[in-house]
């Protein structure tokens, strides 16, 4: 919070006060329009809270809005209004949890498909309940609530949503969401519990939508499932959020206000072609303004980085950093890893080599949690980690780089490193994280590119960045998957020197490599694999000279 912010805050407060005074001066129609704008601002901002950073497109806004409206309709005649609002919010939250638990463990497309039909499903379920259990379809809401009351409630909710959005944006939850949206694999390997993050955000977003629905319900006097669950709303919300820009807090607001006016104009003058024009506007936005109006603005201003809170934790002692015994993994009929055993002592660099397809990367994936072993044990610092989640393993201090470099292209170099700090066991956030991130960047030689977007880095620099992100986790064990691949001789020398320097920090390293010079230069020991099995084990010079190894690489005739 800096001094430069103060005038902006004052302006915002002034705007809020002025808006609060609207009902006193405006006509019924203007007030009705304003209510529409506030309602859609709330819905679009809530939508963008979840779908914006994570890119999981929810097409179910109408379902949650309707749940809130119908809850209000069912309870308002008998329960005091504040309790009704609480009930509606909780109902939205609960349903979102069910939906989230079913679909958010999986990739985004399942979620989209599920939400596509969700509004219709809930409408049918509510109808069924009303007909069979309650014996009545349609509820009457005679609260006599004037427009101004509804307006003020919506205004309060809109301010609250913007504040919540701002708080989330600055929190670890928001950071986690952004990383998930950029690259979910990286997120998991940075210690982020992606499933929980997604579910929590989705539930918050949906609860807000339900609350908006409850506030709006008294306007319609009579609510039946068809009235409460109007699929058009899902569409309008998405189009507004996308127009304004789902990536920024005020984006949806920028989209909602003009579109409400546009819809009103279209309604009045082209009611026939309403649907067509909406669809056309939507497509224009998708093609022309993929990041919305905010995206246009942001192209002139670089974004700042942010982070959050912290808590300490411990790890137990054990002679070996890593012990693998009898590890097995098959895919279908193919045995990718077949009874592999070796160990890694503190401060060692182990080379994992072998021809293509020998199972080296699979071993790394099994260690980092990306794959679950079919059999065998993996002990890290004395703890069994076979079958654990990638994020749990990452938090315990196992970091890795990837065979195909995975940086988060839309974020800056320093922002790419922050997740490692924010989600490790001893997390650091805020200015402290920023400081430490810069130090780490200096370690890998990237301090001058701290603010550059990661997509603009050269190949070797991207590899350095990945390494920095891995180091940010404060790992005891580092897994490098062909980190030296594709480098020219100069870069190779620098790379080898960098890895060499890491061991002096007390790090243990397993490196999968094909570059034999590096293996000889760096590795204390070497594990050679072929067709899933370990065929040799020892110092590089001895292991690589073994006849079976030569046969494996070069074939029978050249042995």
């Amino acid at each position: 919070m800096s001094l430069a912010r103060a005038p902006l805050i004052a302006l915002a407060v002034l705007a809020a006060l002025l808006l609060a005074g609207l009902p006193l001066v405006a006509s019924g129609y203007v007030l009705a329009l304003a209510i529409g704008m506030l309602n859609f601002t709330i819905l679009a901002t809530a939508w963008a809270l979840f779908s914006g950073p994570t890119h999981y497109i929810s097409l179910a806004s109408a379902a949650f809005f309707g749940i809130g409206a119908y809850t209000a309709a069912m309870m308002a005649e008998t329960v005091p209004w504040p309790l009704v609002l609480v009930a509606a919010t909780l109902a939205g939250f609960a349903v979102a949890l069910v939906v989230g638990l079913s679909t958010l463990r999986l990739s985004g497309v399942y979620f989209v498909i599920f939400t596509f039909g969700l509004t219709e499903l809930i409408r049918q379920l509510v109808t069924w309940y009303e007909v069979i259990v309650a014996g009545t379809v349609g509820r009457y809401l005679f609260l006599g609530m004037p427009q101004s009351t509804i307006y003020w409630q919506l205004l309060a909710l809109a301010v609250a949503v913007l504040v919540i959005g701002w708080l989330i944006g600055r929190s670890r939850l928001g950071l986690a969401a952004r990383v998930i949206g950029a690259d979910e694999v990286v997120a998991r390997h940075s210690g982020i519990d992606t499933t929980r993050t997604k579910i929590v955000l989705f539930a918050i977003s949906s609860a807000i939508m339900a609350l908006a629905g409850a506030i709006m319900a008294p306007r319609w006097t009579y609510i039946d499932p068809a009235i409460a669950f109007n699929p058009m709303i899902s569409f309008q919300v998405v189009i507004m959020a996308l127009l304004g820009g789902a990536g920024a807090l005020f984006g949806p607001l920028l989209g909602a206000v003009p579109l409400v006016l546009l819809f009103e104009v279209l309604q009045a003058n082209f009611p026939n072609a309403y649907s067509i024009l909406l669809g056309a506007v939507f497509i224009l936005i998708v093609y022309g303004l993929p990041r919305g109006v905010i995206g246009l603005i942001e192209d002139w201003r670089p974004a700042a980085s942010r982070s959050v809170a912290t808590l300490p934790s411990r790890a137990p002692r054990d002679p070996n950093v890593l012990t693998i015994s009898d590890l097995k993994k098959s895919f279908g009929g193919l045995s990718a890893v077949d009874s592999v055993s070796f160990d890694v002592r503190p401060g060692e660099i182990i080379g994992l080599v072998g021809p293509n397809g020998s199972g080296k990367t699979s071993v790394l994936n099994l260690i980092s949690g990306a794959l679950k072993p079919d059999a065998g044990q993996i002990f890290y610092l004395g703890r069994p980690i076979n079958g654990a989640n990638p994020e749990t393993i990452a938090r315990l201090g196992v970091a890795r780089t990837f065979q195909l470099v995975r940086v988060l292209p839309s974020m800056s170099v320093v922002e790419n490193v922050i997740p490692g700090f924010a989600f490790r066991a001893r997390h650091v956030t805020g200015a402290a994280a920023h400081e430490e991130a810069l130090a780490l960047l200096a370690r890998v030689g990237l301090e001058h590119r701290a603010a550059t977007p990661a997509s603009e880095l050269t190949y070797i620099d991207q590899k350095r960045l990945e390494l920095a992100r891995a180091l940010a986790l404060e790992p005891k064990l580092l897994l490098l998957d062909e980190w030296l691949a594709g480098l020219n001789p100069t870069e190779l020398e620098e790379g080898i020197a960098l890895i060499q320097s890491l061991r002096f920090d007390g790090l243990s390293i397993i490196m999968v490599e094909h570059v034999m010079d590096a293996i000889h230069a760096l590795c204390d020991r070497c594990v050679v694999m072929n067709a899933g099995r370990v065929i040799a084990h020892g110092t590089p010079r001895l292991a690589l000279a073994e006849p079976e190894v030569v046969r494996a690489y070069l074939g029978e005739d050249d042995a």
Partner: protein
Amino acid sequence: MLRKSLSRLALAAAVSALAGPAARVTTLPNYQLWVKDVNAAGGITVGGKKLQIEVVEYDDRSNSEEAVKAIERLGTQDKVDIILPPWGTGLNLAVGPTFNRLGYPHLAVTAATDRAPEMAKRWPNSFWFLGPSKAGAVALSEVLGKLKSENKIGAKVAMISVADAFGIELATAARAAFKSAGLEIALDKTYPIGTQDMQALLKDAMASGADAVVAFSYPPDTIAITDAARVLSYNPKVYYTAVGTAFPVFKGKFGAAAEGVMGVGGWNVDSPALQAYFKRHTEVIGREPDRWASPVTYVSLQMLQQAIERVGKIDNAAIIKELQTGTFDTIMGKIKLADNIMPIVWWVGQWQNGEFVGLAPTSYEGAKAPLFPKPAWKQ
């Protein structure tokens, strides 16, 4: 899907157009017809001068929120003299408070709800032209009860209803009404709106052994059920599908096969005034009116015109009072509202010789005896 029509009239008027299926059948054509008739006669006489009606319309797209906004706009922005309400129970209820607050008379025609009397008390400016929906079940039980007492049908009735307010209200009322008439409900099932395959339900009806099949349905299901019955060659002695039977599209689709089908609606076919209205509607609008709410819509507008002319100026409070207490000359005869509710609502009609005649309430002028049994479906 379903649209409403919304209108505001006189001196500056508004009608919402582009209706969906039902509004296009009932409300919109009759608003248009009335405006034409009035303007052709010179206009509405207001304080000695004849004023033409100018129409402003908004489309509510069958959406409660849009309807509420549109009424606000008409009242506070466009500041019109008369506002005509949308189609449908839900929308009329939605705009009720706004009409009440703005003080305009609210002629709720296409709204069938058991709570109509309560609405009328809550909003004294509102007038409900179809009355409580349970009257529909009562009227039907009258017809069926009579047939049973004449030993023409057994006591068993198979009842299916659409899972929506109107269907449920009718079914709930029917359970009580049928029982009082000595009838036994052998099948009692509901189906969701949009169900396409009605064969399953009809097979259950066949298996129940009922002589009378009653479907409290909406237009698309009315057609689907009738179609399925035809395919199955299921010919119960009494066959009733609720809403939509009285629409021209029903006769259009089924032709001679519609003979003997009962449904909601009806009218006094002997009345010269109604016959003239029928002809005019067909000529001006290009298609026939429906045999239920169409004439009622026209009646409500006639009443409004006469009320305005009697008061002599656009004084809503006075107009409302006149509507509450006065007696009016309409195509359905002399009408005086009872506690803001229309006293004549035909609830059972039947296609006889190509016309949908009124059967019940049997006490109404022009009520005919039912054609019994329903002839076998002509393929």
